[in-house]
């Protein structure tokens, strides 16, 4: 993904009892379950950050080990969110 991902305007969000988050878009057929990291990534998608900047933020916040492919994982999450229409690239 290139550009600065932005959360779509018509996102709907719910919470399950175990703390997981479910997101979709109004009228969308797909609902995605997000763990806390994916939920935080979605929050960072405000149109001001690139994928690299989001990855850097997550890496620092989570203190991820150096050999963890944070950017790759986040790219995968963003691709899923984009396919479901939850973010726009």
């Amino acid at each position, binding site marked *: 993904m290139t550009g600065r991902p932005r959360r779509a305007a018509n996102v*709907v*969000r*719910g919470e*399950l009892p175990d703390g997981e988050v*479910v997101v*979709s878009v109004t009228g969308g*057929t*797909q*609902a995605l*379950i997000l763990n806390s990291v994916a939920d935080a990534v979605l929050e960072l998608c405000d149109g001001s950050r690139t994928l690299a900047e989001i990855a850097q933020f997550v890496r620092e916040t989570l203190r991820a080990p150096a050999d963890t492919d944070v950017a790759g994982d986040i790219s995968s999450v963003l691709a899923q969110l984009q396919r479901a229409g939850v973010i726009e690239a």
Partner: protein
Amino acid sequence: MKRTIRALTTTVAVELADDLRSTSLAELLLAGYAEADDRPEIAYRLYRDGVIYPDLHDDRVEDPDDIVPMFELDLYQQVAWRAKPGWLLHAAALEHDGGAYVFAGPSGAGKTTLTLALMARGWRLLTEEMVLIDRELAVHGLARPIHAPLDGPQRHAIPASWRQHEYPMRVGGAVVRSVITQPPPRARITGALPLRALVRLDHGPMLSEAVVSLQPHQAVPRLWDCTLRRDADGLAAATTILSLRPAHELRSASPAGAVAQATAMTRELAG
């Protein structure tokens, strides 16, 4: 003939004018709905040349066979849009031991086949098409007749004693002929019932027969595509309901397998 019916949670007045040529079809379409005695929220008039809709728009048709299907389509859109808050699903619902079992799935998932098979085993029909689960976990069903393809296997599962009527529907430019059938009153139930369980139907020749319990985080995505009001309120209702009542996925390779699995599942839930 004039009737005031309860369609899901909406009170609807319907007038069948004396000059309507498809009166028997229209009467059968309406036969399953309970009478309502409160003020109608919307009103229709079906007459020889067309349908007068709730907004008073008079839609005249060239083919009188189009009148009842046009009315039916608009009625379902109106009642879905007006349904009280809750989770609105494209699903069948049947009563067993006083509780409602909701079987959700897209068109072709096996709702009609399973519905007919379970009714043959004494389950009562709440709806074969549209379900509203409200915030009190009560299940409401749209009491439309069962629709079956004219030459499909579901048609052969309809008991000969049930009232049936050929039903022409225009799909694109072509007319697709199916039948609608209305089970006798003893085989139907109207009104709200407590939700016992939600079941996602999944069938295919390569699937192993199984009923799989779904946790809420699995159930929401599996049932979301069967949701008719896919908005923030719908999602909130779905997450709440799935946190409070069990959900399952019923996988089957054949209609007989689906019935066996559904029967076993209810025994387990009752036990």
